[in-house]
């Protein structure tokens, strides 16, 4: 397996009129990888996908796919599939005809066409719905049709823009497994956009975190989850206690505080609520709020650091509002941040 990327974005800059939405983006993706694009609303995820698909002209930079520069190749000649958040099924065509649409344009006819369409519909479990119109399907079923319609084209890259965001929680899980299965079976290179960090962590081989039209961090799910490079990524993946460091001391709303032990050399430190030690330690805080989350309990503490969020096993004895507790922010557990804000 060669290390040269299958799909690469080089110094990609995308704009709507004079407004630059994505600037100087560099990204290399290997064949068969499943990439998640994660980031807050408006950071340029859809814009990037549309440029890869050829629906949005590139302002500067290059898109390369499978060894060819496709920057100026029109969208209908790219062999890139896109599953829209809104599914974008053709309302006047049946499930069968939707799936057959692209194959017919390729000139496929007769039994070959029929076999391929049937197989595509079967692979998403919709064989008994082949004659229905999109309006007669549930959201999850429509999503499957959209997936099958793109997959039968055997695209080099399949892009999915928030494919699961219109589905309810149970269907999301189901479709998640479905996506993973399709990807493993076909080995198609996939990029999917999501707002949901849990989804990205569960599905992706690598996660690309975007912020303001640029890449903030690229890494494996473990990297992103445990080793965020910046306060932005840390915040996005659920670190709730995040402080900048100044000369080895934490800068808090209560002033500079020195942590016991060796002074770390980072721009900041971040702790998940789980990483906060509650009931022992050198600091004291007052319980301002609690919430029960099934197998755990969350506390909001008033402390010299300002508000601190701590989470403990639900089996531990509960603390009442107003209780005065000792706690610790263990420096060795903290994620060191290379960049702050």
């Amino acid at each position, binding site marked *: 397996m060669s290390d040269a990327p299958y799909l690469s974005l080089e110094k990609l800059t995308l704009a709507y009129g004079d407004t630059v939405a994505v600037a100087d983006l560099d990204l290399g993706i290997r064949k068969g990888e499943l990439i998640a694009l994660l980031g807050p609303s408006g950071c340029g995820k859809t814009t990037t996908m549309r440029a890869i698909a050829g629906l949005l002209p590139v302002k500067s930079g290059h898109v390369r796919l499978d060894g060819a520069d496709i920057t100026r190749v029109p969208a*209908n000649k790219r062999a890139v599939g896109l599953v829209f958040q809104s599914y974008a099924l053709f309302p006047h065509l049946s499930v069968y005809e939707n799936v057959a649409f692209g194959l017919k344009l390729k000139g496929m006819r007769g039994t070959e066409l029929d076999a391929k369409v049937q197989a595509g519909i079967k692979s998403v479990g919709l064989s008994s719905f082949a004659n229905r119109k999109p309006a007669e399907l549930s959201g999850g079923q429509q999503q499957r049709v959209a997936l099958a319609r793109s997959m039968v084209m055997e695209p080099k890259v399949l892009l999915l823009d928030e494919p699961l965001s219109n589905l309810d929680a149970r269907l999301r899980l189901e479709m998640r497994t479905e996506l993973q299965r399709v990807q493993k079976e076909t080995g198609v290179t996939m990029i999917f956009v999501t707002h949901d960090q849990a989804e990205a962590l569960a599905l992706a081989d690598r996660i690309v975190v975007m912020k303001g039209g640029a890449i903030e961090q690229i890494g494996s799910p473990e990297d992103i989850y445990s080793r965020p490079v910046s306060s932005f990524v840390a915040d996005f993946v659920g670190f709730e206690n995040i402080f900048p460091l100044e000369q080895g001391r934490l800068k808090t709303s209560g002033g500079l505080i020195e942590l016991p032990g060796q002074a770390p050399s980072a721009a900041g430190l971040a702790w998940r609520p789980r990483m906060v030690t509650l009931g022992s330690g050198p600091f004291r805080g007052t319980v301002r709020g609690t919430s029960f989350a099934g197998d755990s309990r969350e506390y909001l503490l008033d402390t010299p650091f300002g508000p601190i969020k701590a989470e403990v096993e639900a089996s531990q004895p509960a603390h009442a509002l107003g209780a005065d507790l000792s706690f610790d922010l263990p420096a060795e557990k903290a994620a060191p941040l290379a960049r702050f804000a």
Partner: protein
Amino acid sequence: MTARSLFIPLTLLLVLAFLIGPFLIIVAASFSAGETLNFPPQGFSLRWILKVFTVESFRASFGMSLFLAIGGTAAALVLGIPASYALSRYKLPGAEIVRTVVSAPIIVPGIIVGLALLRYIVVPFQVGITAALFLAHTALVLPYAVRVVSASLDNLRSDIEEAAVLLGSSRLGAFFRVVMPNIRGGILSAFILGFVTSFNQVPVSLFLSGPGVRTLPIDMIAYMEIVFDPSVAALSSLLAFLSIGIVFAAERFLGFSRYV
């Protein structure tokens, strides 16, 4: 009952009488057995209804009106569909101005449109009567075509065109493969609305009709100036029922009122 609670039903009744009354009078008059257009009608007969079909000039002008209504509306749609598409899909500079100009004939009185066409197009360029009428009817129907087709385009998400393109279709191909089939109802509605508008058009045709070339409404006016028998009432009734039938069928099968 108080006077207050009677007020609304009474008003409604008056409005209805005002709207439908004349129509009922015309219908009643068409079945008259008398020699002149009268109300209440004298006796009952089908002679005027039957006579309509024997008047030579009615047949010719009915043909002309039909030609203008079908041809003019078709031409308006050929121009109007791409125009509506461009207006709804592309953020063109000045799109609002184009929209306003295109719908101008709805706002500007027909008599002005007719006079302007006559004075500045037909006379200077020596346009033939039929061609002039055709042009005028196309221009008159165009705003309706644009409005109705735009309404159904706005109901159609534009991402299905992008989906079609990503499946290998050209932009133009996507328009014919996925846009047209989904606005078919709107196009048919526009056609019916345009047809009826053109067919009933008087002021513009009045200016442009010439020797031997007339639309049916103009011919009816001319006929009434000479003969005052109930055949014009009979013809009106027939046309009214034709229109009602078309609109009713359209509503029934297409949900016509959604687009208008």
